[in-house]
């Protein structure tokens, strides 16, 4: 190559009257720049398309991998509870149930707590404390999930077993429905514990998005309500929440997507038991925990394929939830943009 990178530009930028570079050289350089320009454009386009290829690859490979299991079990895979690697009988309903129930517990706790923290950060907190507290809550999201897992197994589960679960069992023991939900010996690990840990993990997602949309509420709306004599709670409940509704729901769905797919923290504390139990305190399993626990030990194509089919189910569920979340947040952005 005749020129390095820098001189190429210099040549191109010089006028036609330049005495140091001949007309021919200039034409050649311009030609090369045109080529590299087109090449770069196509390169970036290819990279953008690669993002789509990754998603397509995930979907195709999951479907391909789960074909043997789906062919063998058909739709009964979705509603059978049996999970027996020895006889090669597999059904997905127990992990699906565990995934849904742990995520529900997580959302029941994290949504109100997250909304109240967002309210605190936008309305009550002194200005100088807002950033530090906001960052601290977001750091919760930065802690890797395996840390939540090890902490949950060695610290949180024993604590629940000794102090919280016996209390729940004795308090709810006489109430009809709740006595089934909180029945049985306090294992420590189980569906309830997994749900609580998930709640802590998704809390920052719900908090930070709710705070952002609360902050986007026009001050004049809030001031008008305060001017009418509304209390802070009434402003939050009847002015901010309706205005920020779409964004809050988007944030909740985003948190739900996280909770459904969360693997390591749940794997540590759920107990990996393939059965649906009436009691929340009993061990269970989720889709992701089943895959994490069993995949490397899976012997035989059918077993592996059944686990991949579980992954496919998980991906479809989270894809739908995340797509709804993104569509809601997009709608919100369009409104703010206008």
């Amino acid at each position, binding site marked *: 190559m005749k020129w390095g990178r820098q001189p190429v*530009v210099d040549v*191109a*930028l010089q006028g036609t009257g330049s005495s140091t570079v001949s007309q021919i050289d200039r034409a050649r350089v311009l030609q090369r*720049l045109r080529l590299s*320009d087109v090449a*770069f*454009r196509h390169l*970036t*386009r290819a*990279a*953008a*398309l*690669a*993002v*789509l290829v*990754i*998603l397509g690859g*995930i979907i195709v*490979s999951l479907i391909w*991998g789960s074909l043997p299991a789906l062919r063998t079990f058909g739709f009964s895979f979705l509603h059978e509870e049996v999970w027996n690697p020895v006889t090669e009988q597999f059904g997905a309903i127990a992990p699906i149930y565990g995934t849904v129930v742990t995520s529900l517990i997580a959302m029941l706790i994290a949504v*109100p*707590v997250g909304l*109240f*923290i967002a*309210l*605190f*950060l936008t*309305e009550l907190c002194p200005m100088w404390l807002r950033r530090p*507290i906001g960052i601290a*809550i977001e750091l*919760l999201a*930065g*802690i*890797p*999930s*395996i*840390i939540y*897992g*090890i*902490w949950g197994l*060695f610290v949180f589960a024993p604590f629940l077993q000794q102090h919280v679960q016996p209390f729940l069992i004795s308090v709810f023991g006489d109430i009809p429905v709740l006595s089934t939900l909180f029945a049985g010996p306090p294992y420590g690990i189980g569906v309830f514990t997994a749900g609580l840990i998930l709640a*802590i993990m998704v*809390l920052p997602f719900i*908090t930070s998005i709710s705070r952002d949309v609360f902050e986007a509420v026009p001050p004049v709306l809030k001031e008008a309500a305060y001017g009418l004599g509304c209390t802070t*709670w*009434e402003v939050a409940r009847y002015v901010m929440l309706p205005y920020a509704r779409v964004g809050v729901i988007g944030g909740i769905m985003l948190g739900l997507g996280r909770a459904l*797919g969360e*693997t*390591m923290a749940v794997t*540590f504390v759920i107990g990996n038991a393939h059965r649906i139990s009436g009691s929340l305190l009993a061990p269970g399993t989720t889709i*992701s925990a089943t*895959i*994490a626990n069993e*995949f490397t030990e899976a012997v035989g194509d059918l077993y592996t394929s059944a686990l991949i089919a579980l*992954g496919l189910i*998980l991906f479809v569920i*989270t894809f739908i939830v*995340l797509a709804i979340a*993104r569509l809601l947040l*997009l709608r919100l952005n369009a409104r703010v943009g206008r």
Partner: protein
Amino acid sequence: MNPTSPLYAKRRRRNVLTMGLAYGATGLGLTWLVIILAVLVWEGFSGLSWAVFTEMTPPPGSAGGLLNPIVGSLVMTVIAVLIGTPLGILAGTYMAEYGRFDKLTTVVRFINDILLSAPSIVIGLFVYEVMVAQMGHFSGWAGAVSLAVIVVPVVVRTTEDMLVLVPDSLREAAASIGLPRSLMIQRVAYRAARAGMITGVLLAVARISGETAPLLFTALNNQFWSLNLNAPVSSLPVVIFQFALSPYKDWQSLAWTGALIITFAVLALSIVARILAAQRKTS
């Protein structure tokens, strides 16, 4: 309104109650953070010593360190960043510079946002199917690629966001002196958006350095010193997983120490990323 009326008192009571809940919720959130970090330091710090960084993972019942998983994690993280960052930056460049109002950009942005929060265990399954099943064995390369798949959406997102913020007058100035578009992007737009793009890469590193699920059945684990990326490679999160669930006390204590190392590395990375991002806003 009459301050002594029952309605007024009721509204006041409700307000005090809910504001109390708001304080309580914030306290609760901060308490979790403090408890988790305190337990980590308490359990992990006692095991922290030079041996952790200089010795291999031990068999149960003897002393040892975490050298091979630490190195394995570092190597796979570096490769993942080397693969994922250029791809992510180029894709983000297309979305912000060439096709800002394209249909393709809208679709890619939507899909990318979904990949951003897709369950990482599914990404592990994907790479297992594509690489491990085809090659017939677990490998460090497969682990690095699965981490790279997690890096890409993070980098795409921040690159696009940061390039969109670059003022058009800079681009017009570059174009007006005859700079071709590709060079305008590389020399002007990238330079203006540099701090934000580096922040994105740091966030991606923070994200993958704690990832366990995609490594479980791609890189697997390796008890011995090995830099052969065609063989199973040990990594810090997977070793923590294995050791924490083992019945041996010394393995569990090593798991805590590893957890402490990862957490502080990740928190340090995200704090540095925040400082960089904050500098961009003020300058």
